[in-house]
């Protein structure tokens, strides 16, 4: 105790901080960093979960580079990212921008938009799956047939399936992004807008010169956050294509689903680990590039 008493105030604060941090640091070490390190290790090995591990060097990565399914899946993953992120960004901003100006039923509408975010992805995927069925079951096709428009194969076409799976994923994330955008909009001082009003500039100038630049930190957060979400998409795809996960013909299969397949259907742990490492690197690079691009002035 004498030792503790002789510490400076700053040193005591550090001692206490570490005392409280010790448990989570240990926890993280065991459940996060150790498995991550292990996964990287396994990616250079051959392992079927039961037998012994054998070193294979870069074999798994070479196999990956030569695997046409991997490149298809790689492309799909980026499609989810490149369609999903901008679409959800624009949609959530437009909704938040207008919702912010609305007083009537504001709370109710905000709740409606937030509801999908709280809903289980599995339940939502199955409901949307039902929407997409052909007549007489599916909601959308029923509307189309009533309007005299030909049926659309939503989930059974290799071109339509990916956007159809993406739609509920975008919709589910919207509520959260709207809330974040509204908080960002509220943080902009009213006098900025009043000054602009006195200067007589139009709404478009206000939007592009004042609102959007001042929302930059919010936009950075949402872009990075939703990109990570779309790169890791799994549950929507898995639940909407259960009879042929990632189908038809791998047209909706994202990287995470391929990892799942490789690991728990093919029991090729080394190969799955290599895919995981690739996914990790993609996430890392995309996040860093976005932060760099959006942060700098």
């Amino acid at each position, binding site marked *: 105790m004498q030792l503790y008493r002789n510490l400076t105030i700053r040193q005591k604060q550090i001692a206490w901080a570490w005392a409280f941090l010790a448990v989570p640091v240990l926890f993280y070490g065991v459940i996060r960093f150790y498995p991550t390190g292990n996964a990287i290790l396994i990616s250079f090995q051959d392992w079927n979960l039961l037998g012994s591990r054998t070193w294979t060097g870069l074999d798994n990565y070479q196999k990956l580079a030569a695997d046409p399914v991997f490149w298809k899946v790689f492309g799909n993953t980026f499609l989810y990212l490149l369609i999903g992120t901008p679409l959800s960004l624009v949609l959530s901003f437009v909704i938040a921008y207008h919702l912010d100006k609305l007083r009537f039923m504001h709370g109710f509408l905000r709740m409606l938009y937030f509801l999908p975010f709280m809903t289980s992805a599995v339940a939502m995927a199955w409901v949307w799956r039902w929407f997409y069925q052909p007549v007489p079951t599916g909601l959308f096709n029923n509307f189309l047939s009533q309007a005299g428009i030909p049926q659309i194969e939503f989930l059974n076409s290799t071109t339509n399936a990916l956007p159809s799976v993406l739609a509920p994923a975008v919709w589910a994330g919207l509520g959260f992004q709207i809330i974040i955008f509204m908080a960002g909009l509220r943080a902009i001082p009213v006098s900025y807008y009043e*000054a602009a*009003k006195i*200067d*007589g*500039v139009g709404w478009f100038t206000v939007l592009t*010169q*004042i609102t959007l630049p001042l929302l930059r930190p919010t936009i950075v957060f949402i872009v990075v956050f939703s990109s990570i979400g779309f790169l890791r998409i799994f549950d929507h795809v898995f639940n909407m294509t259960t009879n042929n996960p990632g189908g038809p013909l791998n047209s909706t299969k994202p990287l995470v689903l391929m990892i799942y397949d490789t690991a728990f259907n093919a029991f090729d742990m080394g190969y799955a680990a290599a895919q995981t490492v690739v996914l990790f690197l993609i996430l890392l690079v995309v996040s860093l590039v976005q932060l760099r691009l959006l942060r700098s002035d």
Partner: protein
Amino acid sequence: MANLALKKLVKAYGQTEVLHGIDLEVADGEFVVFVGPSGCGKSTTLRMIAGLEEVTSGTIEIGGRVVNNLEPKERDIAMVFQNYAIYPHMSVRKNIAFGLRTSKMSRPDKEARIDEVAAILGMTDLLARKPSQLSGGQRQRVAIGRAMVRDPAVFLFDEPLSNLDAQLRTQMRLEIKKLHQRVGNTIVFVTHDQVEAMTMADRIVIMKDGHIQQVGTPDQVYHRPANTFVAQFIGAPSMNMLDGQLVDGRIRLAAGAPLEMSVARPPSGASVVLGVRPDDLAPTDAAPLIEGRVSVREPLGAETLIYVETASGEIVAKADGRNPPAVGEVVRLGADPANMHLFDRDTGMVLT
């Protein structure tokens, strides 16, 4: 450049009326300061002139033109906000240029105008900077620059100095006054600080609870306050108010000899209030007004404020700074009757 006229101006939020029929004429090139405590309606009035608040009834004229239903941009005004409202993501030059965005000037003309304004405000070498790299006073100057660049008929200032520290405030006060002398536009300036009002204004408008209490030059509102509110609001420390009775043209205070005073207007009753500024009240032996015991001294250097317990309550007087009376000492205080003010206690209106 233009004059400004408010006629029977009323502002109500739903059932609550916050401004009860303001009448005011501001001459071309005049510097008018609205002053009053929080919630007196001074900022609301300014925002109505700017067009940021709707007029409930009455009219606002700028340059002889009723502007009630005109957008802010059509009113030929510019406004400086309390938090400056300069955009953090734009350079000083772009901030100032924002005021010219809708102007039909050619690009070189705009650039020349920005340089001219920057030169007037002494900011030429700051034009490339971002607001985060500026001090409070410099940001304030950018806000003024953005308003100036358009050369508006009327400048509106909404408590622009309240976010600055005391020293900077004094300095900016002087700069704004010099600027006015130089450019000569009409200025309406809102503040809650009576010192700012006194030092800057051509005329002061003192407001309380949505009513104008008095309009006058700094000299008039200080030396000829229209009522007890103005008398106590203007001047620091506040005017001493002594309750008394008016009997046969003489004023009786709680103690001491009755006082002869000419009354210009008949009071509503016998109850009156005698007002004397601390600056006019000093220890004296000749014809004292009141006496009491010194409870606290506040030395200010050249003079010392003394707080004196009297039969009429605690009053403040000014004594010589070199030789002030001691705490506990009994002093007699006197003032020149010409510097005394008499108010009706019921209505608060001046009687002398």
